[in-house]
């Protein structure tokens, strides 16, 4: 008997060791990315100039990325304003009404989720840039919206599908129309999942470079006008990191750090929203 116990304990600790070890290995790349971003980005990102000034020519001190932060915020903001309502309503529709159209939408969303973002950028270029002969923040925003849309649709669908049928039936049995039950009863019940999906889609859009290359294009100057070319944090990283100048490379690291920090904030926000909603709604 004791011999078997020893054997069991040994196997158990071996297995546990393997699990912990492999988890640590999986975390190594993540840790390295964070570490490098923080170490290289902090020197740039600890200057106030970095957050209040715009780009300056090489050699002139006090350069910043304020225009890119604002540009990212504006483009992601417009993209969300377009994609979130549209995606949420489509997602609800997929579950609540179904039918042939729903199957087509689901397929389209799945294809769109997998589409390379550069292709979406190209598509947005043809649609929103070429006709106007002009790069613009608006074109960038719409490219990002196309990118966000399928994510929002599918996460909304997933969240709404988890709501028990009893809730829907209870609403309908009160004599409420289907669309009101769907939007005012089922959707709020699914809110934590829907909001999380929307925030994660926003985070993804904020980090995308490819769709902005030939839509938002980038801009060295301050602008809040979405009809003008607009800069964004990923574009700063892309452009500055490719230059041979250490000062600009540092700007790139700083911009990357701001992006990572923004992701962290969005993720924490989505967790907070979920927890707050669950405390009130409890287990359905």
């Amino acid at each position, binding site marked *: 008997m004791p011999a078997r116990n020893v054997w069991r304990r040994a196997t158990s600790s071996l297995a546990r060791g393997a699990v912990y070890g492999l988890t640590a290995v999986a975390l190594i790349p993540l840790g390295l990315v964070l570490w490098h971003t923080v170490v290289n980005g902090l020197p740039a990102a600890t200057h106030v100039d970095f957050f209040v000034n715009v780009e300056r020519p090489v050699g002139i001190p006090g350069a910043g990325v304020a225009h890119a932060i604002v540009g990212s915020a504006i483009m992601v903001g417009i993209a969300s304003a377009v994609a979130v309502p549209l995606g949420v309503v489509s997602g609800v529709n997929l579950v609540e009404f179904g039918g042939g159209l729903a199957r087509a939408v689901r397929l389209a969303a799945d294809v769109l989720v997998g589409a390379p973002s550069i292709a979406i950028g190209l598509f947005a270029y043809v649609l929103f840039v070429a006709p106007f002969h002009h790069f613009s923040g608006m074109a960038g925003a719409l490219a990002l919206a196309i990118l966000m849309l399928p994510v929002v649709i599918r996460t909304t669908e997933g969240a709404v599908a988890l709501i*028990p049928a*009893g*809730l829907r*039936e*209870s*609403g*309908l*049995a*009160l*004599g*409420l*129309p289907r669309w*009101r039950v769907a939007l*005012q*009863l089922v959707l*709020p*019940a699914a809110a934590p999942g829907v909001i999380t999906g929307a925030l994660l889609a926003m985070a993804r859009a904020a980090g995308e470079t490819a769709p902005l290359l030939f839509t938002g294009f980038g801009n060295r100057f301050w602008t809040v006008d979405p009809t003008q070319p607009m800069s964004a944090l990923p574009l700063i990283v892309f452009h500055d990191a490719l230059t041979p100048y250490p000062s600009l490379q540092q700007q790139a690291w700083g911009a990357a750090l701001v992006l990572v920090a923004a992701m962290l904030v969005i993720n924490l926000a989505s967790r907070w929203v979920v927890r707050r909603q669950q405390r*009130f*709604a*409890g*287990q*359905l």
Partner: protein
Amino acid sequence: MSDLSAFRQPVVQAARPELRAVAGISQNKLRIKELSFYYDRTRALKDLTFDIPERRITAIIGPSGCGKSTLLRVFNRMYDLVPRARAQGSVLFEGEDIVTTRRLLELRQRIGMVFQRPSPFPMSIRDNVAFAPRLLGWGSARVKEAVARSLQAAALWDEVKDRLGDSATSLSGGQLQRLSIARCLAVNPEVILMDEPCSALDPIATLKIEDLMVELARDYTIVIVTHNMQQAARVSDNTAFMLMNQAERCGELIEFAPTHELFNQPRDRRTEDYITGRFG
């Protein structure tokens, strides 16, 4: 259960003898005539004909799969949610045929439903009851009145009046079921359909709901589907016994009678077998 009298004893002294005395006065609220029901091509109900009297409790009993719940879902057209389900025949409700009516939302307001499992809306106790009245566009004073009135009528008011703002999910199972009833009462229904409302409750909560049903039957017509024959015997005025027709695989009405008659002098052999537990 060889000694039948032991079983029948409580049935004879069933609830509400005072109402039985005036049983003849009641009007028929729902008149079911040659009702058949199909899920796609499968027939689920066959040629049901009986009347459900107003301000009485009508119980529908029978073994699982005999179509009790299906029948209940015809009365408020909940079956519309099932693709390719259709009813044939008629159910007259105040002169209007439920099977063919186009005023579905009005119908469901007037014929409310309480489900087997309570589904609290993810909001406060007050908002649960106020939800439908608000969406119907009632003014805030009227909504407030409806919340208080419905919670009182559902015998929940005293337990929750000091915490109307709390989440509904903080309530116990029995309270949740009474909240479902309050929610249903808020829109002023005439008929309340109950689909196994006590099957998830403990005996004490069950008794409370049964008392409540008897109370509500003063103002509302109640139709209850139940597996629990003692429950049907305790609360109902009339009982419909349904059984699955083994040859055609669809539900049939075997017997419909005043509850004390059905339990004490069943006319049909199959009814007797079922209520005495000899049903195979």
